[in-house]
Each structure stands twice: as structure tokens, then as C-alpha cells.
């Protein structure tokens, strides 16, 4: 401890500075924490660097014609990007068609209708669903959703199909959408609801015409984050959509198919990872870059909406 003499004649600036050893320890600890915080920047930089390097090799070496052909067969030098992109869009669209209504409905119920006791039971159940690993949902999509739901709706559907994968992704994304949307609605001030009730509005009217419009930025953010998560989801599609060798361009959701993520898993899977002719290895990083840029853009976009909610209330 700094035991400077408290004799007022001798009290100088130096005696107020405290124990130098203690200050040195303080500075060292601060530097250590700064270092840990900077680690996250290092990670980001490495991601960008790694992706950029191999993508550059791919882009500069690839025959542009092979980027727009009849399908994605990386081991044969056919890198049709649109096959994967359309696959991702289809799966994401199906996933959001499931997750948006389920997530929004659950969020409105939890935030506006559920009593605290009911909420305390239901909310953890949603969180348990959020904690289920995606491989597990992939297995469920292949072994239950595909035969029990998809093949009942369409008897000609293959066992491996994009529809089942999309529904599986939707179930996976639902808790995320519900939790972000619920946060947005709960941050709407109580006074707005009271004012609506005071005007004689019913609970439905208050929820639909007052709370939802007031929370709309947050709901948009919930959907965008859901889309971003759905595009980046790998295992459900890798297991339930089949097509591990490659796939032809197709818009049929009842047949096998591939997304950007599943194509990466398929390419890297198998023994000793990525072998193959020419640029097969680099195509992995090329798809990875596309995925990275796409999800980054969506996340930045969603972030803007979340911040708007925070500023308003």
C-alpha cells in the first residue's frame, strides 16, 4: 500500500501516485486483457487471409466457362456456382417458411400472452431446442421428416430431398427467430400497450396493431439473422439432402440437392480430406468465401436493425 507520509508539508505529487509495484501490476494486467481482446481481431484477419489466398488461386486459375455449367462436380472440374447458390436459396426459403411463422408466433405468445409462470416453463423448452446439435436434426430430417412428412405430401419424393433438409433447417432456426423477436417485443414500452387498452382495444388489436409495428425493426433483424443462420447451416443439409458426389442444376425440392455448405462438407469428407485434380481443393475455399461474404453482409444488415430498436426505446 502507498504509505506516503501524510504530513502536509511533505505531501508531494509523488506521494499521491501510490505504490509503484502495485501500479506496475495494474498495467501488466491491463495489457494482458488487451491482448486477449486483440485475439478476436487476429482470428478475423486469419479467416479473411486464408479465404482470400486460396480463393485468389482458384479465381486466377479456373476456366470461367466451368463456373457456369450444368452442375457442381468439383472432382471433375465443373464448378457451377449457381447450382449451389440456388440450392442454398431453396433450403433457406423452405427453412424460413417454417421458422418465420413458428418463431414469430412463439415470440408473440411468450411476450404478450404467456403469464410469467407459463413463460418460465416454455422458454427453457425453446432453449433446449436451440441447444440440439445440428447433426441430430439432420438425422431427424432424414429419418422422420422425410418419410413422415415430405413423402406423405409428395409420394414421388426421394428419401434424400431438399424439402426435408429445409424443414430441418427451419426447426433449427425457429428458437433463434423466436428469441430475437421476443426480445424486440419485450423492449416495447408498457405505456404503449396501456394506451392501446385505454382506447378500448382488445388484446389482439394491441398485439397486431401496436406492439408488432413498434417492434418491427427487431422482427426484421430476427428474420435476417434466421436467414443468415439457415444459409450457414451445414450438417442438416449434408445428411438429409444426399448428393454427396456433386449435383446437377435443379429446382426440384423433392429430389437430392446441394447447398454451398453441404458441398463443402461433401468435398472435405471422406478419407484424408481434399484430394482431386487441379483446383478441387481451392474450390472449397472459393465457396467458403462466398458463404462468408454473404453471411457477413446479412449480419451487418441485421445489426443495423437491432441498433435501431435500441435507440428508439
Amino acid at each position, binding site marked *: 500500500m502507498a504509505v506516503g507520509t501524510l504530513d502536509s508539508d511533505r505531501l508531494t505529487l509523488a506521494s499521491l501516485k501510490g505504490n509503484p509495484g502495485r*501500479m506496475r501490476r*495494474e498495467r501488466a494486467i*491491463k495489457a494482458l*486483457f*488487451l491482448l*486477449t*481482446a486483440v*485475439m*478476436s*481481431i487476429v*482470428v*478475423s484477419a*486469419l*479467416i479473411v487471409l*486464408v*479465404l482470400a489466398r486460396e480463393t485468389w488461386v482458384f479465381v486466377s486459375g479456373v476456366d470461367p466457362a466451368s463456373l457456369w455449367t450444368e452442375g457442381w462436380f468439383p472432382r471433375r472440374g465443373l464448378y457451377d456456382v449457381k447450382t449451389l447458390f440456388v440450392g442454398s436459396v431453396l433450403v433457406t426459403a423452405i427453412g424460413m417458411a417454417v421458422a418465420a411463422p*413458428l*418463431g414469430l*408466433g*412463439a415470440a408473440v405468445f411468450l411476450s404478450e*400472452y404467456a403469464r410469467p409462470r407459463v413463460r418460465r416453463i416454455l422458454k*427453457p423448452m*425453446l*432453449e*433446449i*431446442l436451440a*441447444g*440440439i*446439435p*445440428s*447433426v*441430430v436434426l439432420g*438425422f431427424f430430417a432424414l*429419418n422422420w421428416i422425410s418419410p413422415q412428412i415430405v413423402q406423405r405430401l409428395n409420394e414421388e419424393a426421394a428419401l434424400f430431398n431438399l424439402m426435408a433438409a429445409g424443414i430441418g433447417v427451419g426447426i433449427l432456426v425457429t428458437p433463434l427467430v423466436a428469441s430475437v423477436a421476443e426480445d424486440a417485443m419485450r423492449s416495447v414500452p408498457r405505456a404503449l400497450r396501456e394506451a392501446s387498452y385505454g382506447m378500448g382495444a382488445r*388484446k*389482439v388489436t394491441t*398485439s*397486431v396493431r401496436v406492439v408488432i409495428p413498434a417492434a418491427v425493426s427487431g422482427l426484421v433483424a430476427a428474420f435476417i439473422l434466421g436467414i*443468415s*443462420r439457415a444459409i*450457414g*447451416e*451445414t*450438417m442438416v443439409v449434408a*445428411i438429409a439432402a444426399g448428393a454427396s458426389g456433386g449435383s446437377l442444376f435443379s429446382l426440384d425440392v423433392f429430389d437430392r440437392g446441394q447447398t454451398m*455448405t453441404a458441398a463443402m*462438407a461433401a468435398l*472435405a*469428407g471422406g*478419407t*484424408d*480430406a481434399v484430394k482431386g485434380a487441379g483446383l478441387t481443393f481451392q474450390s*472449397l*475455399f472459393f465457396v*467458403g468465401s462466398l*458463404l462468408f461474404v454473404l*453471411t*457477413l453482409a446479412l*449480419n451487418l444488415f441485421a*445489426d443495423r436493425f437491432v441498433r435501431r430498436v435500441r435507440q428508439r426505446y
Partner: protein
Amino acid sequence: MVARSATSSPELVRRRLQAGRFDVAGLVFRVLLLAALGITLVLLVTLLADVLSGGWAVLAGRLGDFLTGRLGITPTRVGIGQGLRGTFFIGVFVVLIAFPLGVGAAIYLEEYAPRSRFTRFIDVNIRNLAGVPSVVYGLLGFAIFVKGLQFLTGPDANGATVVSAGLTLAVLVLPIVIITSAEALRAVPENLREAGFGVGATRWEVVRHHVLPYATPGILTGTVLSLARALGEAAPLILVGAVSGFLTEGDSYRLTELRERFTAMPMIIYTWAGRPQAGFRSATAAAIVVLLVVVLLANTVAILLRNKYEKRR
């Protein structure tokens, strides 16, 4: 008397105000919301029931063998011993690397960082990292740990070792650990810090003796959730090169054998889910039950911890 209490009952008042009309829209809306939540929960229950009934034969018939056995191609003889070992070590890496780095970064951002553009940059960067798809982390792990640092992570196994996988998953959950820990630190009342400074404590002394003890339950909740997330991730494992077919080594818990080829639970589930033989369906379901027990146990502990902590406030 009876008549008087009836006129003042809220039920009667409401009926009078609605002029005898029944609130159809309100009922429909409520039913829709309940349906959204109901479908979600029914899917969760179906999933759990499906894997439990699918894996029951294996779990009840040969649990001991199954938990200690090795990978293979005969569904009636395969086991997940090597997978449990891989998953255990991945957990160890996450706890030893991601937790200290993540909590350290959170302490820096919440307690030390000045309000500068640099701080804001780190903050935005961390939130974006949390949204990067897990396959992309797989690419990072492949390029940096499997290839770049092969001499450290295991030259004899071409870098495809549990060390690489553990490091990759530690990096993957790092942003989640930072975000949840920062939230827990933010919830610590400011006057606690001011009281500490008031008696002459340094910043580190305040953090160490007052802020951290108060925030520990919150930090623990976040870290346990991210551990569960890491144990269930499969996509990065595929890219890092977890073994899916035969594996002669990989069931020893000795540290000297960390730099050999490996597999982990999510990888086993992914591989087995893709095998056509009927026997593998029940083996996969049984493996899923084991993984879910581990992951959901961690999640439940985290949720209970948080609920207890919230109530105390």
C-alpha cells in the same frame, strides 16, 4: 347479495362491454399463437422420442460395449469409445483456451477499454465473428492448425488430430464466450465498482474482488452454453479431418497420444447417419442419445443457473 357480486364481477363487465359479441378474432389469434408454439414443442418431443425409441435396442442391449467399443463396419459391434474420447478432449481444449481468452477479452471490453473507435471496432468484429458459419471456421482450422502448424498439432497424422479440432472449436466459440461474459459483466451494478474505487482499490482489485464474484453465475451460464455448442459441432470436424471409417488408435486418454488421428461424437453420428444398413440407424440413434445427454445436461445446468441467478436480483 349474490346479485350484487355478480354485477361487479369482471366477467360480466366484460360481457356488457362487448355487447354480447364473442371475441372471435381474439380467439383465432390466440389459437394460432398456441399452435405455433405447440408445433415447435411437438417437434422437439417427436425428435427426442424418435431417437430414444430408435436407439433403445442398442442402449438396453449392449450399453457397456457400445460406450467403449470402436468404429467399424458391423453395426452390431460398433461402439463410440473413440468418439467420447475425442469429444472429451475437445471440451478440455475449449475450457482451457476459449474460456480464459474469452472472459479476459470481455473484462477488457467492459472494464478497461476506453470509448474509442478501436474499442468499437473490436466490439463489432466480435459480433460478426459470432455469425460466421461453422464450416468457415473449419476452413480456418484446416489452413492454420492442420496445415500451417502441423509440426505442433501432429506431423504423423498430417495434422488431422484432436489438437487441431480442439483449437478450431475453441476459436469457434470464443466470440460467444466473449459476448455472454460481457453481458454478465454489464449487469454488475455500477455502484459496486464505485464503492471499490472509493476506498482506493485499483481497477484490477475492484474487478477481482467485487465485479467477478458478482458476475460469476452469468459468466458460467454463457461458458457452459458455449461448451455445449462446441461439443455438438460437426462441420468443422469434417474439414479438420476427423476419421469416419476405421480407427485403430484414438481411445487412449494419455496426453502423449493427443497428436494421433481421432474422431468425435458428432463426426460418428454424421458418418453413421449416411450408412444405408438398417443396423446403423439404431446405432446412430443410440450415439445421438449419448451426445444429447451430454449436451442437454450442460444446457440444463446453464439454464437453471441463470434462472436462479435472475430470481436473486
